């Protein structure tokens, strides 16, 4: 199979995988983020609270420690006021009891200074004069206590507590002062790091930022003033919040400061890393869960890809092959679900299409053959054939059609039919309409192309169709030649008839002359002979008149001149004119009418006379001797009806339809031995129909025939302006010009 480049890419499986990842991971990531933030926040709050609590607790301990030391010194000071002699003993006791007490100075206002230390468990007292530069007593004056931090020889901090010695308790006058120097070992020990996490510790500074205690002895000895450390600066500035800062060692720590009643500050520090150790654990857990989720999603995606995407891709490939006209392939999916059904349907459709295509190919072959056969037939017919679509655009036309328009077929293809074919029908342009299926015939169409006029009969077969289909077949039959031939025949008949009339006029004129002038001189036999000649001449005149009429009808030259005609009078007179002939055959000819007075019709007098002559003449002719002929005029509201009833042989039913056609005569009339051309009824029918009437024969009732015709009654509104025809002054063959009224 070619066209491998066109195989659809497996987008679906990628999309599926991506969807799974998105759907699976997104909640995990969001939940992880939210949880992290919450956990971080919580840890932060917990660490804060914990450090605050520890800082407060340790502040209390520092106070307790200082109060205890202060209390010991205060005891000595009070004892000295009352019992100065017991000073040495009490100092010795205190120094021995309190290991943190390194030295005690006792100053008196008389300038003596007694310094007590413990040397290898033995009290050692050095007495001296107060150095003049020593302002300690001045500083103690008026105060209850003096607290400061100094350094010993090894640069270890010494907490110095000074108390005034007053003569009376509560007096502002001092007699001396007692100053105790405490190392910070015990204080440091009294500040446990319990409750803090690993690496957490605490240290103490005084109100000037001097370091009092620090668990790192090296640091303690190396640093005295650390007020620039953020946590210390915070304490000195009076803010005791917990914050993440750089420690005195430069470590990233969470620190909290707290002030004591004695004015020292306690700083609690814990490495940030340690504080958030549990948070890191959370994070690791979250990442682990995320990775697990990714793996799950990928696995699920792969599973679904195998389960659904692959069959769908197979379907897609199958569809692709069908577009490449490969209908024979089968799609193999056995997933036992809807996809398998689809594949089965697909295979079924494919084989159906395959069959259709195969059928179509063979159909096309036979169709092509049929088309060429049809095309040959259409091209070989002598009539013009044009095939158009529903809009009238030419799809094809055969050479005779093109020749009619003096064009080559290819020059007319695609053009609208009215671009080259505009025949007229009764003087107006023929309108083509290819919408309603059916067969439409038009005769005597005229087509003017340059100076040449062509006469055509066309037939338009409109088919059921769609766009671009053949919607109609126009067949054009060129009638010009046959029409010319037909007119030549008719002209010949007309000329012949006319030429016959001249000798007829001569014969009839001289016979009449004989009949009127010479009759006295003729024998009875010759008189009879003369009468026979006259009858024959009359029949010849009638025949010639009829032939002329037929020629005119055929050419469309029949002349009708409508007057206001007194029909009752005309019929009555005509009946009277036939009385002589009826009498000769011993027939009874009668006239009846239901009309009161005269009844008028708009009609051509001469032609109606001809109709009456035909119908009454036929009745007289075919009715046997002694029979009856009745002419009856019936008037109705809108028409007048003339019935001619006879007692003749009647007309067989099967012959009635042909009765009014050209050159027809009922067979029986031939048998009866009467003569006639059969033209009279055809001419009469033409005359009556031209004047909007009806002519016909009634059902045979077994006693002769009833011919009838109707004419519309004169209507003063419609027919206003017609002049009444005078039919009373009848000289046969003479027509006087009407005198204007």
């Amino acid at each position, binding site marked *: 199979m070619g066209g491998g480049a066109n195989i659809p890419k497996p987008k679906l499986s990628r999309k599926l995988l991506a969807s799974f990842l998105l759907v699976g991971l997104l909640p995990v990531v969001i939940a992880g983020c939210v949880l992290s933030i919450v956990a971080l926040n919580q840890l932060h709050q917990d660490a804060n609270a914990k450090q605050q609590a520890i800082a407060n607790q340790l502040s209390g301990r520092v106070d307790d420690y200082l109060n205890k030391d202060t209390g010991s010194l205060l005891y000595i000071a009070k004892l000295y006021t009352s019992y100065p002699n017991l000073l040495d003993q009490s100092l010795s006791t205190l120094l021995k009891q309190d290991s943190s007490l390194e030295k005690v100075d006792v100053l008196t206002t008389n300038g003596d200074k007694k310094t007590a230390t413990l040397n290898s468990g033995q009290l050692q007292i050095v007495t001296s004069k107060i150095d003049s530069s020593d302002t300690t007593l001045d500083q103690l004056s008026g105060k209850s206590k003096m607290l400061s931090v100094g350094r010993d020889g090894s640069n270890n901090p010494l907490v110095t507590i000074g108390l005034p010695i007053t003569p009376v308790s509560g007096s502002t006058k001092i007699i001396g002062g007692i100053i105790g120097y405490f190392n910070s070992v015990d204080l440091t020990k009294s500040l446990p790091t319990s409750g803090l996490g690993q690496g957490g510790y605490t240290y103490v500074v005084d109100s000037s930022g001097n370091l009092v205690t620090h668990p790192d002895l090296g640091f303690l000895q190396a640093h005295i003033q650390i007020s620039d450390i953020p946590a210390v600066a915070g304490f000195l500035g009076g803010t005791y919040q917990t914050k993440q800062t750089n420690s005195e060692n430069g470590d990233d720590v969470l620190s909290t400061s707290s002030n004591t009643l004695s004015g020292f500050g306690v700083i609690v520090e814990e490495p940030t890393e340690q504080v958030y150790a549990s948070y890191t654990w959370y994070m690791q857990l979250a990442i682990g869960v995320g990775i697990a989720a990714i793996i799950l999603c990928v696995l699920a995606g792969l599973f679904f890809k195998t389960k659904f995407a692959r069959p769908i891709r197979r379907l897609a490939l199958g569809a692709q092959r069908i577009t490449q006209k490969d209908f024979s392939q089968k799609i193999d999916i056995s997933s036992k679900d809807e996809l398998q059904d689809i594949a089965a349907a697909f295979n079924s459709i494919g084989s159906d299409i395959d069959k259709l295509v195969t059928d179509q190919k063979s159909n096309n072959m036979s169709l092509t053959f049929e088309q060429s056969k049809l095309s040959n037939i259409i091209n070989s017919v002598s009539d013009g054939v044009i095939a158009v679509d529903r809009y009238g655009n030419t799809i094809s036309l055969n050479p005779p059609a093109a020749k009619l328009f003096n064009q080559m077929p290819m020059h007319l293809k695609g053009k609208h039919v009215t671009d080259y074919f505009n025949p007229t029908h009764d003087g107006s342009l023929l309108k083509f309409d290819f919408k309603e299926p059916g067969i439409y015939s038009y005769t005597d169409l005229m087509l003017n192309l340059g100076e040449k006029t062509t006469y055509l009969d066309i037939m338009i077969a409109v088919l059921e169709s769609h766009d671009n289909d053949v919607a109609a077949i126009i067949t054009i039959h060129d009638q010009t030649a046959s029409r010319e031939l037909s007119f030549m025949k008719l002209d010949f008949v007309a000329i012949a008839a006319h030429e016959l009339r001249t000798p007829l*006029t001569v014969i009839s004129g*001289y016979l009449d*002359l004989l009949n009127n002038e010479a009759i006295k001189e003729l024998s009875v036999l010759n008189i009879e002979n003369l009468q026979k000649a006259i009858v024959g001449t009359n029949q010849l005149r009638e025949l010639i008149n009829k032939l002329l009429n037929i020629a005119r009808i055929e050419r469309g030259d029949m002349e009708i001149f409508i007057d206001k005609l007194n029909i009752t009078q005309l019929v009555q007179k005509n009946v009277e004119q036939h009385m002589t002939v009826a009498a000769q055959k011993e027939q009874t000819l009668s006239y009846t009418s239901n009309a009161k007075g005269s009844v008028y019709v708009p009609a051509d007098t001469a032609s109606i006379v001809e109709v009456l002559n035909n119908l009454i003449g036929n009745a007289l002719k075919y009715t046997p001797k002694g029979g009856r002929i009745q002419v009856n005029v019936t008037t109705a509201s809108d028409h007048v009806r003339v019935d001619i009833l006879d007692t003749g042989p009647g007309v067989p039913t099967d012959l009635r339809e042909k009765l009014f056609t050209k050159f027809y005569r009922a067979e029986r009339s031939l048998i009866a031995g009467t003569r006639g051309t059969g033209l009279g009824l055809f001419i009469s029918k033409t005359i009556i129909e031209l004047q909007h009437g009806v002519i016909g024969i009634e059902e045979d009732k077994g006693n002769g025939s009833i011919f009838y015709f109707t004419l519309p009654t004169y209507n003063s509104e419609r027919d206003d302006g017609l002049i009444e025809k005078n039919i009373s002054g009848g000289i*046969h063959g003479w*027509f*006087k*010009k009407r005198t204007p009224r």
Partner: protein
Amino acid sequence: MAGLKNVLLVEDEPMIRDLYRIALADSGYTVEVADNADEAFTKLGKFQPDCIFLDVMLPGTSGLEILTELRSNPAHGCMDAKIVILTNLAQRSVADNAMEHGADGYVIKADIFPRDLPKVIKSLEEE
């Protein structure tokens, strides 16, 4: 107008011409005949007809042309004469055309009896 006595008959067919001449002369009319236009106009120079029977189909100048000339040219002295067209065409349009050009009526030769011609003249006198 009464007393149409002088009749000019223009007809090229001798037998018909004779037939009509005899019929009219027998009834007491003064009849002059011509068988073509030239002869007719020559006759008019010396004969003043009250009534003219004029055949339509004539060799050379047709009856209708003669009619038009007679009705439009007073020199012929036929402005008031009655003119009856003789025809065998039985085409009423031809007859109507003739009457529009001044004819007073027309006769279909094949249908009329020659003996009825005096009656035609009589009917023209009734006005």
